[in-house]
């Protein structure tokens, strides 16, 4: 069995989500990767990768030619894998359409070569599904697979030509507008620090900012904090706010009501800082600190 992983490159490096996909692909035997545009060298250094296929003329920003190329080279593979990112979710289902197979998105666990676990109903249930397709097209949830390291491998690089690109009926990329704000977006941030009513007022809520800056974190809020005017609506995390699943979620002065948990319980690591040892947030936190946030926050800022 051989798996092919579609890699995403960002600033010359392989994105973490793609490295998680490579880690997951290891379960299926030999791993080849495909790089569109730049970044083949970085890909070649990934541990566990045998071959890097490099299509320099293409870009992962365009699903139509990318899927067409993948379909061209698919026959050598049992599994074609991408990260469950906006890019992966754009390209891989299209590939599945070209191959006439049923894609298996958002895989969080691999039972065997045909059997996968994936969340349904916004993560409220986990389905174990078996695929009867000869080529499995899969996207992988990064948070559930420890990524392979960025360095350590020495794969061969082979150029792949894709001549039919001009014949593909495709959209044309006009412009890219990456958000320039210092702060990452809440839903895609690697670290989120959220504050609740325990921060007492809008002025205090700003105590989260220097810490967020140091961690490169997005800032979230509980509904009580939003309703009390400490933070704008867009920052609300929870059932009626944003759903986030960062690597690290730091909950400061929020009780962890079930409606809040609904928006962050899938975070990889949860830290809770709260005065009340009985606060429900501690029932989901990996690390808890029963302490006054007004002493903890300045300490944390200087410790980072």
């Amino acid at each position: 069995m051989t798996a092919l992983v579609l890699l995403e490159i960002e600033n010359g490096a392989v994105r973490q989500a793609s490295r998680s996909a490579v880690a997951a692909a290891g379960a299926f035997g030999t791993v080849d990767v495909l790089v569109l545009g730049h970044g083949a060298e970085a890909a070649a250094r990934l541990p566990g990768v045998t071959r890097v296929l490099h299509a320099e003329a293409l870009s992962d920003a365009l699903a139509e030619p990318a899927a067409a190329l993948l379909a061209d080279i698919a026959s050598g593979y049992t599994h074609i894998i991408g990260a469950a990112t906006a890019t992966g979710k754009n390209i891989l289902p299209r590939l599945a359409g070209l191959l006439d197979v049923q894609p298996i998105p958002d895989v969080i666990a691999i039972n065997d070569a045909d059997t996968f676990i994936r969340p349904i109903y916004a993560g409220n249930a986990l389905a174990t599904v078996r695929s009867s397709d000869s080529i499995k097209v899969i996207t992988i949830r990064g948070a559930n697979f420890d990524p392979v390291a960025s360095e350590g491998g020495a794969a061969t690089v082979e150029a792949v030509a894709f001549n039919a690109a001009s014949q593909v009926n495709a959209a044309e990329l006009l412009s890219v507008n990456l958000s320039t704000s210092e702060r990452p977006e809440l839903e895609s941030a690697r670290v989120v620090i959220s504050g609740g009513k325990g921060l007492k007022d809008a002025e205090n809520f700003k105590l989260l900012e220097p810490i967020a800056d140091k961690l490169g974190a997005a800032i979230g809020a509980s509904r009580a904090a939003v309703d009390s005017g400490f933070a704008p609506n867009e920052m609300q995390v929870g059932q009626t706010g944003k759903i986030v699943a960062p690597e690290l979620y730091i909950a400061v002065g929020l009780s962890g009501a079930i409606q809040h948990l609904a928006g962050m319980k899938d975070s990889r690591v949860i830290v809770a800082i709260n005065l009340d040892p009985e606060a429900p947030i501690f029932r989901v936190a990996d690390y808890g600190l029963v302490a006054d946030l007004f002493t903890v926050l300045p300490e944390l800022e200087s410790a980072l």
Partner: protein
Amino acid sequence: MKVLVPIKRVVDYNVKVRVSADGSGVDTQGVKMSMNPFDEIAVEEGIRLRESGAAKEVVVVTIGAQAAQDVLRTAMAMGADRAILVKTDETLEPRAVANALKAIIERENPGIVSMGKQAIDDDMNATGQILAAKLGWPQATFASKVTINGERAEVTREIDGGSATYGVPLPAIITADLRLNEPRYASLPNIMKARKKPLETLELSSLNVDTASRLTTISVAEPAERQAGVMLNSVAELVEKLKTEAKVI
């Protein structure tokens, strides 16, 4: 130009789904069903295109049981002109749905297929892309803005870390993201009027397409509850743990 909007009837957004006791699936017996929220956005976009003069007609289609005509009526109450119910009692995978939609599209010849990026029950986020591939059409997934210039659409898509704008030759598939628009309410007078709009019903089998399943659900389980971790005594300890144990900072 015609806009075709495929819509799906799903367990309502507000319902807390429960995994059935025997682990065979999710209990949907008698629970409230509604139009997939992303599809409401897709319907709204279709109506706006018609209102702006870019499109002439908005047709909604669903593949589902007889009861799925509710959501077609809702879409018509929002402003869609007519509806097609492709009737089946089976639950279809996106591949099968795409095959059925392709047959409808070949009959209706829409200039734009506006659909939801994802259905909130199975969260596949796949039907639009598969359909685009099968038709050989361009796709603009996760759209947050759509404008039409003659034979082309200009679509802003949500990508990781920002957005990107594409020129999309028509016909094309556009899948709606949350920020595309805020769907209107179906007002009571419009709901009343929608009862009189045309709704065509046809059997899925009459389309003669492959709707076989490629996935078998072996079991459905509730996610394991998160366990409480450890209580720490100081900020220094916390930072240490995050660095060395959790390796997240």
